């Protein structure tokens, strides 16, 4: 995929070129929205909104990392979604399990190559992490998702949320510290393999 050519074509109004870029980056945008919002439906809405906004404003892209630019649009869409939620709080509708209880990590989302035990462990871990992410202030959450989940460097994260590098560094340190404290509560719930792996570090 020649990204630069596709961006250029998209800037000329070529929707097909833009859609090829959307297909390439949709997983990254969806995952970012999912980790920031903690809800798959809202994450899908925010991702769609982000792509729409990206197409409308693609002429404002002046080079650099296109992924970082797209992640900025999805972060903004997440902020908008959270502001909307504050104004009109709603009860999330999640798929119900056999016992009629809502499942926060539905089975249909899981990797089919895992054994049921592995899947349960993964779900548990994911649930705990997401719980702790949700407990972070939004600004901290966005930074930690962009850097530690999406693997962006400080500069890209700074561009994505339009904050100085120093702010990114500070928010990231605070977010990691708070996450570590929060996860301490779930330590026994975490899969043994993971516990050993993370605690094995000197």
């Amino acid at each position, binding site marked *: 995929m020649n990204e630069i050519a596709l961006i250029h074509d998209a800037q000329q109004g070529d929707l097909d070129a833009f859609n090829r870029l959307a297909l390439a980056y949709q*997983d990254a945008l*969806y*995952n970012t929205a*999912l980790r920031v919002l903690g809800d798959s439906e809202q994450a899908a809405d925010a991702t769609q909104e982000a792509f729409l906004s990206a197409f409308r404003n693609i002429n404002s892209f002046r080079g650099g990392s296109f992924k970082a630019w797209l992640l900025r649009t999805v972060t903004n869409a997440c902020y908008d979604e959270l502001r909307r939620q504050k104004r009109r709080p709603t009860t999330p509708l999640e798929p119900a399990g056999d016992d009629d209880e809502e499942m926060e990590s539905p089975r249909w989302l899981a990797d089919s190559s895992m054994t049921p035990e592995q899947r349960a462990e993964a779900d548990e871990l994911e649930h705990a*992490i997401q719980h702790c992410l949700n407990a972070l202030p939004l600004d901290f959450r966005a930074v930690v998702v962009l850097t530690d989940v999406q693997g962006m460097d400080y500069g890209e994260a700074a561009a994505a949320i339009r904050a100085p590098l120093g702010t990114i560094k500070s928010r990231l340190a*605070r977010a990691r510290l708070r996450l*570590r404290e929060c996860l301490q509560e779930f330590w026994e719930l975490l899969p043994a393999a993971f516990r050993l792996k993370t605690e094995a570090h*000197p």
Partner: protein
Amino acid sequence: MTSPNFSDIENLSALLDEKLPADEARRLRARLEQEPDLRAAYQNLRQARAILRQLPARRAPRNFTLSRQMAGVRAPTPRLFPLFQWASALTAIFFLFSLGLNALTASAPAAEAPMLAAAAPFAAESLPTATEESAPMLAAAAPAATAEPGAELRAAAPEPTSAKLAAPAADAPNASAETPAPAPQFSWPLVSTLLAALAVLLALTAWVIRWRAEQNFRRGA
């Protein structure tokens, strides 16, 4: 040995990401070897990052590509569309212009009507004179006018319009012999109506061209 402050935590986090300047990193590593609290804080940050990296990447539940409708992409403008659009606009301007002329021509005869009425008897009297008496008399009157300017001006003072009005009458002798053929009338109202109809027709054509292009575009999308 002191417990790490927030500045230390920030630097440890940056050290973890290798974003600390080399000399600062060297100093901090030296402290890490000597200060167990600092080392513990570093491990906490490291574990938090490791846990976050364990988060599984989810696949997008559907494709987020945009349809033309969602993106608000409109059909490309057909080449003929602007032509008809401009033609329609120009015709509309001509139509308005013709309406103005219409109004002017309608008001002019109304303003001149009393003058014509006043001049009618004079014209009627002068007509036979002009027809019966020959041109030399008219020619003689001209020098008289120059010879006695004051008297003539006084006498002629009320007459300029009537003379002017009578002028066609004076020219009439030749025509009066035959039946005067009615001059072809230029009907402004008719022109205005035609222009209005043309403007509407052109605008409609432009709209149909655009509409058909959009229909074809939607079928293709």
